[in-house]
């Protein structure tokens, strides 16, 4: 045994102490509060999505003639296929919720402020990629919602000035939904988006390690710390265990269903996207296409550069509570539009 360890030691010149130095950051005591564990939650759920996604890809066939049937096969015939699909579907729902809650926490505790502006922007990109991965995911099932969702998304891209047509053709593989569309959505969902997210997640975590965890009260330094390993890792493991339990219960009691198969000749009378797009869906009903898309793009852009805007405001008016009011307004608008869309048929 010693010889084996020695063999590796000679070839991997890293000591346990060096690894500990690299990862074992002293964490401020406030991180012991559950609310501050939310950052690890989406990362854990992302891992669940990767594992269940790989399992689903063993049976899924991305073409209009086979996609729906292969999902039906997974759901009703493959052993435990319904469970794996349920875990993947609920994992996506919880992941979106976790990312949004994490962002809300970071926003209202001011953890995005100097010097952490870049990490907020990386986080915004991760949010956008999470939503896009969710969207491309339910587009793969090839039920009515998948087909019309992808058609609408293609046309939303088309309304973007200058590069719109390019984006639409890139997403759909032509001017409209065709046999070329599903393979694109599949490769985006299963490779391009998750690999991009893995990369950004690496940057996100590396920046936290480089800058240290944001203090609970900006500009102060906390006296009490505790170690990442094993204390915090065990806390996150406990959160992960709870999430796994929750996912298993959801996948069993509310299993992933299969709606009617895509029909390019008929948009169903009642059609709604997944809940996390309700606000955008309502927004699209309120304004003309270009106005709705451009205003949404503007809002996302402002969210992305908010740390810079906030920095300027706070330079001029110290201790300004402006960001809190903006945050409350934004959160209310998001919740209001979502509830509105959920409450009505059209």
């Amino acid at each position, binding site marked *: 045994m010693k010889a084996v360890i020695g063999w590796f030691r000679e070839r991997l010149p890293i000591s346990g102490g060096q690894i500990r130095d690299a990862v074992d950051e002293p964490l401020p005591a406030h991180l012991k509060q559950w609310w501050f564990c939310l950052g690890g939650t989406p990362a854990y759920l992302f891992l669940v999505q990767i594992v269940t996604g790989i399992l689903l890809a063993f049976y899924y066939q991305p073409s209009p003639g086979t996609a729906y049937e292969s999902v039906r096969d997974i759901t009703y015939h493959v052993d435990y296929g319904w469970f794996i699909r349920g875990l993947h579907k609920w994992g996506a729902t919880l992941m979106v919720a976790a990312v949004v809650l994490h962002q809300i926490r970071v926003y209202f505790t001011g953890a995005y402020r100097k010097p952490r502006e870049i990490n907020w922007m990386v986080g915004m990109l991760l949010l956008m990629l999470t939503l896009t991965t969710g969207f491309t995911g339910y587009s793969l099932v090839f039920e009515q919602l998948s087909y019309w969702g992808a058609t*609408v998304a293609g046309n939303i891209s088309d309304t973007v000035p200058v590069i719109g047509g390019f984006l639409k053709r*890139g997403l759909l*593989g*032509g*001017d*409209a939904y065709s046999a070329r569309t599903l393979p694109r959505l599949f490769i985006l969902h299963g490779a391009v988006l998750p690999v991009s997210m893995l990369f950004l997640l690496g940057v996100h975590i590396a920046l936290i390690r480089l800058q240290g965890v944001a203090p609970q009260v900006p500009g102060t330094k906390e006296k009490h710390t505790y170690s990442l390993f094993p204390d915090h890792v065990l806390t996150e493991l406990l959160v992960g265990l709870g999430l796994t339990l929750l996912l298993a219960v959801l996948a069993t009691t509310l299993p992933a269903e299969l709606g009617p198969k895509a029909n390019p000749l008929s*948009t169903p009378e009642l059609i709604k996207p997944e809940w996390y797009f309700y606000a955008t869906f309502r927004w699209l*009903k309120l304004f*003309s296409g270009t106005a709705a898309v451009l205003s949404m793009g503007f809002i996302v852009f402002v969210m992305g550069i908010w740390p810079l805007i906030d920095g300027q405001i706070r330079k001029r008016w110290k201790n300004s509570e402006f960001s809190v009011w903006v945050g409350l307004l934004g959160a209310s608008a998001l919740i209001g539009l979502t509830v509105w869309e959920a409450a009505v048929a059209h």
Partner: protein
Amino acid sequence: MADAQPEDSAPAPEPEAEPAADGDTRRDFLGRAGGLVMIGGVAASYGSLAAVAGRYMFPEPAHGKVWVYAARLADVEVGQALSFKTPAGASLTIARTQNTGSADDFIALSSVCPHLGCQVHWENHNQRFFCPCHNGVFDPQGRGTGGPPKDAGQSLAKYPLRAESGLLFIEVEAVGNGGAA
């Protein structure tokens, strides 16, 4: 030899490289130029590869239109509408509004909502086309009368029609890349 001067036996000094105007030697210049050429070559090769990948990812869309047979004039009565699917896969509605025996009797409206591309359907009780995706409403002539299409002044696309020898023809997109599934 004993009387040989030490200067004679010493190797001749290498000729000094001619300094360039800014003090660089010719070797420095050549080294830098070589580097630039190499960077240019790498950029050109990867640029070409990117261009090829771009054309691969974004194929040329289909162009061109064709006239195709739609119906016999006598088979469609005034007030009647028929669904029509183009060779490229688009669906549309052809309705007869009058009876003069010409193509002007008919109106061919796309079933694709100009807002974000969902399928509209005819609501007989409301005498309107309705798009269930984002509540777009159109009158029987295809003009946007409610929802986002009205705000943006959008109408359902109209297809040109032609009558010949008692037959109705319609001009539609040719089959090509990117047709409907």
